[in-house]
């Protein structure tokens, strides 16, 4: 069967790619667009390493088909920093040492950004529940939670 032609916006850039019917958005990002920042940890929506937003909504890109991205606005980790200026979440993750191996980090950052867009002043519990879909095996989450809350505080000051 012929491949599907998909047009979308990724990190504010117009993109086009061809994909198989059963190809996931994650595979399209990684294999067709060479955006390997989103990771495959499980391909079943359990680990969150492939988190991206579609029209502002947080999703596991392994659970979305490439064809579903047609006409959509997608944001990935590659679009988070502005030039050489890191997003406050990225900066706080570095300052708090909120990553060890770093494989979950892109997904956690995307999810945290989506949280702060909805709720600029989350409690620790709200942060923990929002990020419950992003598995991290290295940190025990302590420094991740601190970094997100610190970034939120800084972003509120800046707003």
């Amino acid at each position, binding site marked *: 069967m012929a491949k599907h032609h998909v047009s979308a916006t990724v990190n504010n850039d117009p993109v086009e790619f061809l994909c*198989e019917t059963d190809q996931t958005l994650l595979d399209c990002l*990684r294999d067709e667009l*060479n*955006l*390997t*920042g*989103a*990771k*495959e*940890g*499980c*391909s*079943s929506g*359990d*680990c969150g*390493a492939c988190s991206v937003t579609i029209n502002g909504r947080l999703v596991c890109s392994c659970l979305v088909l490439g064809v579903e991205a047609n006409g959509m606005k997608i944001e*990935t*980790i*590659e679009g*988070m*920093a502005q030039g050489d200026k*890191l997003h406050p979440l*990225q900066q706080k*993750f*570095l*300052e*708090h*040492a909120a*990553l*060890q*191996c*770093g*494989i*979950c*980090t*892109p997904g956690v*950052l995307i999810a945290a950004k989506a949280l702060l867009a909805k709720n600029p002043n989350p409690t*620790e*519990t709200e*942060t*923990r*529940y929002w*990020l*419950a*879909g*992003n*598995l*991290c*095996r*290295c*940190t*025990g*989450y*302590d*420094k*991740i*939670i*601190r970094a997100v809350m610190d970034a939120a505080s800084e972003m509120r000051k800046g707003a």
Partner: protein
Amino acid sequence: MQERVKSPKFDIIGTRPIRPDGADKVTGRAKFGADHKIAGQLVGKVLRSPHPHARIKSINIAKALALAGVKAVVTREDFKEQSPEFIPAGEMLVNYRDVLRNVLAREKVLYEGHAVAAVAATSETIARQALKLIEVAYEVLPHVINEVEAMKPGAPIVEDGMITAGVTPPPTTPSNVAKRVEFTLGDVAKGFKDADVIIEREFNTKPVHQGYIEPHACVASVSEDGTAELWTTTQGHWIARAHCAKLLGWDITKLRVTSSEIGGGFGGKTVVYMEPLALALSQKSHRPVKMVMSREEVFRASGPTSGANIWVKIGAKKDGRIVAGEAILKYQAGCFQGSPVQPGCMCAFAPYDLENVKVVGYDVLSNRPKVAAYRAPGGPISEYAVESVVDELAATLKIDPIELRLKNAAKEGTKAAYGPKFGPVGLVECLEAAKNSPHWKAPLGKNQGRGMASGFWFNIGGETTVSLQLNEDGTLTLMVGTPDIGGLRASLAMMAAEELKVPYAKVRPIIADTSSLGYNFLTGGSRATFSSGMATVEAARSIIKQASGRAAKLWEIPEDAVSFENGEFRPAGDNAGKHKPMTLADIAKVAGKTGGSIVGYAAISAQGAAPSFGVHIADTEVDPETGKLTVTRYTAIQDAGKAIHPSYVEGQFQGGAAQGIGWALSEEYIYGADGKLQNAGFLDYRIPVASDLPMLDTIIIEVPNPRHPYGVRGIGETPIIPPMAAIAAAACKATGVRMFELPMSPPKVLKAMKDAKAGKKA
């Protein structure tokens, strides 16, 4: 208190700079195993056994090979037999007969998920179709999953003809017990005779997986001239090189292995699974081949650690002095020998200064995936059981559990049951810190309980090579060979900068490939910061020596008349003449004219690794309706020797604690009667998520290791040891019942509480 070496004052060590690989890791730029790509690469896939135990009668690959787009298929026919002798591969002893069989089954498949064949095709879809076209004829055999069942006479034999080693006279009939080991100190029978109180208990634990979020992944490219490149996510690329070259019969120099950024390992990425297959497929197809495991494959076919059955007996005097400790450990090895039962035996009673100890261990085969190292392999299981009995002993004697441990704590000069005498160690300091911590004194809420436990791990050194080059502008490039899993590059750059008195940002550390640097043993055994740090300091000192020589040459004075102070080379005294001090950058600028490039190289076998003791405090709350235990507060205290970058030391404490909490409460391999794994995914194999955990407080104790230039001890593994017993002790306080099995999942806790209630009424 013991006499301590005083820490010198440091400029950089002990601070918390941003890691050198940080920006790449928060922007998605860092390349992990599956992120590497080569033009023309094929997709490699593995056919796996649907049976837990079966003889392979035949494998027919004709139909698969005939499928358009299939470029190569490999089976057992493509690999030569290997010797069953244990031979060194770097620092490890390896039996390549078993390594080969774990990579690809030969006579039999030994667990569900065991690799049987591999294909390389032009697309994922075609590769999957090809797997379905491979015809394997199996003769299904009876299987055995549980270690206690596997030890019984008449159990299905996993490895034909296996005779237990370590038993005199040797048994005459085969069994699933590969090995019996024993460690004794003093006379336990006499010790128990002197005891006022004796407690003996039996424990059971389940296999748990390392649970790294990044599945195994590699890309192999074999050239027509027989040279090859391998990119892989590994804790040790020299080890991967050794294993692959051996299994493929190649000269080591032909294979260049590059370690990608690694998305977690915890011991599980110290062995090879797909790498030899990818290389063989590439050799056959003349194309690069990429292979990536699915999460399901990771669970079914890469190593969890052992499940175990443990029996512990401890005797003590009324005043709390322990007079004898005895244990029998039965550890699952998976389908090949080599469970971590030996280290399990060695560390069982290590936190205690005892006169009489006896520990016996059995390495038991069953139809499960071969276990792989998991953070302090063997230690968490035996120490969980011993610490749980010590907690019960404290309760029986009505002595505070910290006081009981202080009364018996291992300290400098203590002879461990496994042989050596401890040098300076920080267990007493950790226990004192626990006793004085705000956590230990805080009030508890309804349905809550508090527990604590100690933990010990050996730590290792070993073969390590680094190269530190002084660039012409005075900056430095540090090449190391231990993959960085959690901030290593930061710690090593800090040590180089400290030694050379240059800013941290002037040192750029990279992980070199196997063709660019001498041999490095893997990142494991909590050795990377210790060993590569020691080598880095040695390389930095070599640079100082070489640079002093250059200054001496320029000033026309003897080399020993040049001193290095506060980042400057200067004449040592008035006799040496008056010369303007030079910085390292000044000397770098003229290096070309004074003798050539200045490179510090250190190829060492790092000696003097020192153990790290830890003490954890856990609060748990039980939901009396469901039996669910939640950890509500947690403190991890551990002796780091010297924390180079405290944030990453805390991170190790927290990460180990979180894995231990998972082990204690929710993680387990669940098998059906059919011998198949029922929970090969993150939904059903529950590792702790953010909402499961509280903040994880840490206290870093620093009792310097006198045998490291900066006092470093390995710290990565110890933190996974205390959690299970600490949580079990806390759960006992919260529920009123003592649990002897992991994980302490809600149904088990609820049943234990109900049984206890019924028992009280009856």
